[in-house]
């Protein structure tokens, strides 16, 4: 996304130019601080002891670095009545994310392919109807979903939560793959058909290997969305089956005992790490997913 071919336009050099550049970098730097300070505060606070937090100030760096808060957040902080830390809830999130992302991505790829490369009458209308599902405020399906999970015997369970994420993630995954496949020449499909390949043969041997970038973008998008979800987690799970976001909120908003800000911050970082790590490793794809989600159609 970087632009290289305009860098060379000859410009008036001089003090004015220099001043503008200085101002530019100053402004960019100030905004870097704006975005980074909360992260720095979060990390610094998590490494301080409670006494140091009370005595020191928000922006001061920890004097005696201690990982006690981290240990406590991970394995002994109280979430509701249970005092095992975030650890069990973290694994809940993992158990939820892996199947939910895998299933919704595979189904999205298959559907995007069928809707674009094997066009049949009404495909556009079907796509529009499915796409609308990506935009509904989920409040409107909370009540019937809770009932349905109850009927299915999945209420308050992780498989139930996986089901919810797969269903409401499908609209997005289908959208991503449809947008990708629209750019794939139909000539390739026709050539493969002439060579005698069928619907699934073309999908697995030709289309899927080509769509690796779309797969990566979709997986990262779904992963971030599902990891960071709170609404479905709090509405459809109870206690032991909560995902880590819900547990974090419970840790922070628990009203019993002394407020341990350092543990709160450590817990927040632990909850943020899975998505933050993916962002740092695969930032480019993350950005592509964000803009793919933005520029529909």
């Amino acid at each position, binding site marked *: *996304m*970087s632009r290289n071919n305009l860098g060379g*336009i000859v410009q008036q050099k001089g003090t004015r130019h220099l001043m503008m550049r200085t101002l530019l970098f100053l402004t*960019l730097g100030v905004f870097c601080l704006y975005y980074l300070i909360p992260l720095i505060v979060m990390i610094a606070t998590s490494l301080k002891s409670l006494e140091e937090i009370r005595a020191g100030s928000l922006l001061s760096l920890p004097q005696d670095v201690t990982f006690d808060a981290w240990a406590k957040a991970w394995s002994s902080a109280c979430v509701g009545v249970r005092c095992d830390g975030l650890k069990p809830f973290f694994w809940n999130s993992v158990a939820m994310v892996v199947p939910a992302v895998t299933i919704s991505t595979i189904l999205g790829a298959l559907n995007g392919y069928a809707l674009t490369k094997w066009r049949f009458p009404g495909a556009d209308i079907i796509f529009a109807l499915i796409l*609308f599902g990506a935009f509904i405020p989920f409040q*409107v399906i909370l009540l019937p979903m809770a009932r349905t999970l109850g009927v299915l015997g999945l209420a308050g369970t992780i498989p139930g939560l996986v089901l919810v994420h797969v269903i409401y993630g499908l609209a997005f995954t289908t959208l991503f793959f449809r947008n990708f496949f629209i750019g794939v020449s139909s000539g390739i499909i026709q050539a493969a058909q002439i060579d005698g390949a069928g619907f699934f043969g073309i999908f697995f041997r030709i289309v899927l290997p080509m769509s690796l970038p779309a797969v990566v973008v979709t997986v990262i998008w779904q992963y971030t969305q599902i990891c960071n979800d709170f609404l479905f987690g709090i*509405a459809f799970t109870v206690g032991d089956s909560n995902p880590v976001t819900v547990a974090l909120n419970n840790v922070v908003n628990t009203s019993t005992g002394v407020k341990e800000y350092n543990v709160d911050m450590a817990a927040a970082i632990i909850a943020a790490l899975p998505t933050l790590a993916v962002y740092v490793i695969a930032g480019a794809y993350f950005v592509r997913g964000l*803009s793919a989600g933005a520029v529909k159609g």
Partner: protein
Amino acid sequence: MAPRTHSTVPLGQKIELWLPRFVVSPLFALSLFFVYGFILWTVYISFTKSGVMPNYSFEGLSQYERLWATPRLYVALGNMFVFSALFIGISLAIGIFLAILLDQRVRIEGVIRTIYLYPMALSFIVTGTVWKWILNPGLGIQNFVRKAGFEEFTFDWLVNSDYAIYTIVIAAVWQSSGYAMALFLAGLRSVDDEILKAAAIDGAGSFRTYFSVVLPIMRPVFLSTVIILAHLAIKSFDLVIALTGGGPGYATAMPATFMYSFAFQRSELGVAAASAVMMLATVIAIVVPYLYSELRGTKQ
């Protein structure tokens, strides 16, 4: 429009013809049931006298009357209006400003972009937790400034019911303005290089080039960004819960938290359903015309 089934067409080919439809139909069925079926269910419940348990006898508009008689609803609607306007406005302003700055051949652009965008990777719960700490009057910014010598400094918006809603704006802008920046930057980069060269030869300075040439071309990007931010704003739930819990009192209630508390805490299913239907109507009013124009645009 049934495909012609000629007796000489082998069975395999017939199956092949129908396969795409077989593949799409489960998804479509799911979508019909879990989206449209559920919407209808919720709409129907909003017209019944359901309380703790669903009750399927039709009651007309009574749940809506109860909903509209709830003062908390007006707080929630007012909050949503204030929050959406400020959140969208400020995020757009910061986004476009930063995108233009980053478009000035900044060598370390990749690093800066990463820094601006990382909050978007965080959960709103994490964002809420962090800002709750920073805005905490006892140990946060207020304390920091007081210790710096300004003893009288007060910044207690988080616990002040008149101002608490603005703390949600602050945190939401922090999280999403980088996203707006990324969308605008991608938009700026999609403008044809030759057009910018033409503007340079036409003698337009950077200011004129942006405002007279580039930004008008980016109108569709503006529209998508506003729609996305509006959509985020209407659905905002997590951040409110994590930052203020809807408080103090219900000073920072939003439609999403309103619906949640009536559905799962106060067990007033009818009122909850009615409020959910109102949210849906709002989203439809914004999103459907947009989707319609976008999908029509693709076909051309």
